[in-house]
């Protein structure tokens, strides 16, 4: 079983993200592996454990993204590839999917390519399906459970309404959700192995793809209006009295 897990590096979720001079600033918060992608790596490792094979982690990003790849190696992935190129400045999701598809080809394909459901930064959640469309493989999105039987993969998709069981023949592209299982912590041995790993860096020329021109562009970045409101504290001598006053306030808002 050959598995590729696609990851991205993003500012830590605890970061105080702000717009500064038209740019996104996250202060001195660290860059980390996109938390949703940790589930992709976890899902990939589970399949490797069940069926044998290898897990390759693939990332498009700057030099710093090697740290995110090393996190995945420390979790137990076998090898890692970074696609990095000065021409990759304004990637939209389709552009990222084109670059990933080319890198997947260069790796030599796979039985399964696994993504997290979305990234913490852009949050569009489009790249997995766009990668599948570009390489022409079936898309099994939002999988909460993965089962391989012979040449097919069956997943339980977690939708708004419930769970849908869907199967397809490999190779497939998957995206996974949290119910796949909590991502394992890197082991001590894993961290040691990852720290010594040399991660190959491929340019766009290496994967034979031109820098995709973005179709989606940002025209303005806005800090959401601060909505600190003057709170009206409801007080009283007993819970019943407080609840009575609060109920009147809620009903007066006419939101029910």
């Amino acid at each position, binding site marked *: 079983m050959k598995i590729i897990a696609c990851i991205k590096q993003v500012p830590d*979720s*605890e970061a*105080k*993200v*702000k*717009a500064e001079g038209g740019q*996104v600033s996250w202060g001195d918060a660290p860059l980390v592996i996109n938390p949703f992608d940790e589930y992709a790596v976890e899902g990939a490792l589970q399949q490797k454990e069940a069926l044998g094979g290898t897990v390759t982690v693939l990332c498009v990003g700057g030099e710093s993204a090697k740290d995110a790849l090393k996190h995945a190696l420390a979790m137990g992935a076998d090898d890692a590839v970074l696609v990095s190129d000065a021409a990759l400045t304004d990637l939209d999701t*389709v552009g990222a999917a084109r670059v990933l598809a080319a890198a997947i080809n260069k790796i030599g394909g796979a039985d399964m390519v696994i993504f997290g459901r979305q990234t*913490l930064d*852009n*949050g*569009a*959640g*489009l*790249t997995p*399906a*766009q990668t*599948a*469309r570009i390489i022409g493989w*079936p*898309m099994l*999105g*939002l999988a909460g459970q993965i089962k391989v039987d012979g040449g097919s993969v069956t997943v339980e*998709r*977690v*939708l*708004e*309404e*419930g769970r849908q*069981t*869907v199967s*397809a023949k490999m190779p497939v592209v998957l995206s996974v959700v*949290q*119910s796949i299982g909590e991502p394992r912590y890197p082991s001590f041995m894993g961290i040691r192995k990852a720290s010594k790993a040399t991660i190959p860096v491929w340019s766009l020329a290496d994967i034979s793809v031109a820098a995709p021109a973005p*179709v*989606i*562009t*940002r*025209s303005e*970045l806005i800090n*959401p209006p601060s909505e*600190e*409101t003057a*709170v009206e*504290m*409801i*007080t009283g001598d007993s*819970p*019943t009295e*407080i*609840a*009575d006053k*609060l*109920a*009147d306030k*809620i*009903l007066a*808002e006419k*939101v*029910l």
Partner: protein
Amino acid sequence: MKTFVYIDHFKGEVQPASWEAIGLAKKYGTAVALVFGADADEITKAAFEYGADEVIVVDDPALTDYRAEPYASTLSALASSSTPDLILFPTTARTRELAAMSAVDLSTGVLTDVTGFEVNGDQMIATRPIYEGKLLEKTVCSGKPVMATIRGRIFPKPAREAGKTGTLTKGEAKTEALSTVAGYSASESAVNLGDAAVIVSGGRGVSNNPALTPPAGLDEKQAEVWRAQQGFALITELATLLGGAVGASRAAVDGGYITYAHQVGQTGKVVTPDLYIACGISGAIQHLVGMRNAKVIVAINKDADAPVFKQAKYGVVGDLFAIVPALTEAMKKKMGK
């Protein structure tokens, strides 16, 4: 301007933001609703009544179950032949996938989770939250058609006009499928926070009721979860009375008190209810970002300095185990239930 509006439905239930998308489309010209799948008569009728000028129905056995590939190919073919300026979708698990794929086919892009939309001459500008709502961006799409998935409960829902009709067209299905659907099970609790008009949420504080004695034989952690479940029972009672959904903070989900589907904010969900009642939630940044678009926020917390009070319109410093049941009783009386 001609807009396709994709009507997202599952097992006969339409995602309500589909109707909101028709309303938005009508603001700029013609709304052509797309209804894919079998037995679409009721949905087609509703689409006209919500204001669609035209409905294109693609009724084919291959489209009975939603599957990304044939749905995307069908949409791409329709868009290629009738060249809309814009394609709108409600934001759902299905439409993210479908729009993503169709955008590849049509060499265009998708603006997801749109919370603001304006047309300026030839240009359509969409506002959308990024970084989990910590920032907003205005984005433009240089491809044609522009594709956008709108967030629910942001754009006004058009009034339904019974009996209204329009042009009904049959579309052709593209049937090549790469997957098979074997089954479906409804979610155990069917949590849909995105559509909820009222949300009552619980945080770490729901496990803090020392007055409760857990059943014998539980270890410390099990006792904590047991306590929390009693707390969530009070929250559920209030939510049910108000016709709302039960939400939770990350701390409550991480503590194992309630399933992830209930989580508001951060790696969970951004919600836009009319009324949000936060119980025993101190207000981590991610949670505040997830809930601050609610119209009216009520916070109940023991700690008067909890950050949640800075976002709230009404606050109560007190014990949620006393206040929440009292509020349920008071609301019952005043609502005549």
